């Protein structure tokens, strides 16, 4: 039985680590293994492998800097090719990585009339099918810049990370007439603290150590969907 609310409310989700167990690197690795020709595939895969420790370190330092650094890896890849493999990416990588409780959580949220919104640092074309599969109403993902059909390695602003997510949510709520105090936000990472802080019902999902400590301090709900 859906609760009658004075104002509309929403559930805002981070994606990687929250609803699915994969992260941006899994997607990059998937594409690295599907380059044109064996040499390109080997080169891109090796490059991705070498960069892994750097990705980890930069992400620890700042999610925004990580995004700038990380998406450089897509430089030179064609839009058609990236798009073409998106369906396979969903079937082979993303769909099996959906946490067992994720769909139930979304269904229970829908049942009480919450609009389902995902905010993710992933690339928009890689998650289209996943969003349909999860029955998400709206999503905001990062968009690569393409010139003449090839990625420049830059991400079009606003880059979805940290405070940008919170800003986007505030604007979205104002535009759609959504009450943030009645809304939920779900994330696994301390980098999403701003997004969790602006809603009435923040939930730390499979949280990292730092987010768990914050959640405990602030009496936020801690959920394990694994």
């Amino acid at each position: 039985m859906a609760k009658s609310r004075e104002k509309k409310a929403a559930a805002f989700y981070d994606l990687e680590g929250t609803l699915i167990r994969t992260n941006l690197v899994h997607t990059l690795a998937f594409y690295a293994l599907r380059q044109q020709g064996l040499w390109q595939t080997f080169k891109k895969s090796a490059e991705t492998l070498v960069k892994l420790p750097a990705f980890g370190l930069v992400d620890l330092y700042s999610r925004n800097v990580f995004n700038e650094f990380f998406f450089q890896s897509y430089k030179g890849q064609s839009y058609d090719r990236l798009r073409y493999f998106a369906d396979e990416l969903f079937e082979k990588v993303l769909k099996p990585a959906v946490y067992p409780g994720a769909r139930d959580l979304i269904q229970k949220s829908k049942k009480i009339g919450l609009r389902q919104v995902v905010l993710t640092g992933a690339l928009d074309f890689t998650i289209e099918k996943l969003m349909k599969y999860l029955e998400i109403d709206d999503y905001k993902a990062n968009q690569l810049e393409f010139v003449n059909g090839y990625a420049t390695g830059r991400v079009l602003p606003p880059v979805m990370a940290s405070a940008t997510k919170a800003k986007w949510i505030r604007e979205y709520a104002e535009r759609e007439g959504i009450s943030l105090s009645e809304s939920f936000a779900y994330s696994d990472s301390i980098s999403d603290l701003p997004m969790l802080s602006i809603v009435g019902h923040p939930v730390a999902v499979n949280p990292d150590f730092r987010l768990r400590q914050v959640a405990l301090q602030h009496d936020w709900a801690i959920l394990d969907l694994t």
Partner: protein
Amino acid sequence: MALQLRRKTHESIVYIDKDSAPRIIPFGEDFILEYLPVGTRVIYPNPTIKGLPNREAAIRYAVNHPLDADPLYAQLRPGMKVTIAMDDISLPLPPMATPDLRQTMLEVVLDICAANGVDDIHLVIANSLHRKMTEWEMRRMVGKKIFDEFYPDRYYNHDAEDEKNLVTIGYTKHGEPLRINRRCAESDLLIYLNINLVPMDGGHKSVAVGLCDYESLRAHHEPQTILNSNSYMDPQRSELNHKITRLGKLVDENLNVFHIETALNNRMFPEGYDILTRNEDEFSLSDRLKWEAIKRTFSKLPRIARRKLLHQIPAQYELIACYAGATEPVHQKILEKNFQQYEIPVKGQCDILITGIPDISPYNVYSALNPLLVQVMALGYHFNMYRNKPLLKKGGVLIITHPCFDEFDHRFHPSYIEFFHRLLPESRDAFYLREKYEREFAENPAYIEMYRRGNAYHGAHPFFMWYWGENGRQHVGRVIVAGAENAHVPEILGWERADNLTEAIAMARSYMGRNAEITMLHQPMIGICNVTD
């Protein structure tokens, strides 16, 4: 009445004299020693009924000689679907020494099932909207052998939010719905293993409450039903019991239930700690040394360590009766035995009731007794341990001893935190809270998933805890917390605080008069006061 004469009213009742010893009173995870005013009536648990010498034989006899039903072996046939449901970790309290009584019951029942060619068996914990038991707790409850054979596919917790595994079996003529666990409902035979610790437990409550969903539960777990129960520990005068009996009849019409109920004695503590339930006037030198050892050990430990220590002391309960068969006659027999162990005849109500709050409740096994649970123990359980009339006069003062720390277990009680810090400052009116917020909490997707996938109490559970205290809240004039370490927790609960018991008694006397009759329940105890004029 002369004090010497008053002393002899009942073996469980002691009056404080000038030369009486100080009393040991629980104070959360600690114990305090306090002198009580002369004339105070102290109520102790009844003497322990001796346990049956061979509990396995008693259980086997019960299932072979059931009441109003065919013996278990006669109801079994090869290929049939059998589900064995059992009480969760909230019973008994504290958790009993292994082997748990449920393990013994299971060993007997599974043995009979195997002998009759029944192998499609599931074991379901009837946790209702309580937290799901952890793997370790589940293993401890049934023993390694049964656990290894059945867990996790055929031994699991009931899930009141698993839509596809719930089935509506009907409505009572009063329109109360009953939706229960599908596996239990669709089995050829449902065997229920019960441990009856207090008269509120067991009977139709086992299946109709233990295996139901939120919508079914909210029909009777609501403030008016609690208010109309005088008390909910006295089944005949409990509206809650009447409603559950209606649902139970629906169960009997639709399911084939074979109920095995057990009654335990009141041996709550092992040797060494047993002094905590005894009359301090009768302490021997050895008893005093035991108390000194407990006191000194506890004084050196931080709260968390004391809690851990207390949670590792298993209860030494013994089986005193076992009956099997149809739910109602079985429950009737067990209730008689319960009252034989617990009932204490008490003459006259009191003006001031003192009750220590120990770290024991059905809802904080292996976790902290948070403020809402302190409330449910004080105004719910301790207040309601009566028949006929409350021990405390209408408008009297209830004094409890507890530090009232603002501590919640995030894993077990997440929705309690929001209830306590967000809702109670807005209102303490149970009807208002139910109307405005209960469904919001019950449908909170995060709380639902924390209940389903973790070990959290259901989102609506803190409401039931608040309703549980409604009787007491409406009856008691004031509640004073002696020794509360902060001001805000008592204030949120609508209580007053005092630095210590002496100050609390002085405050209570200032409200009730210098000649106020004082009674103390010597906690921890399980005892039902049958109060007459």
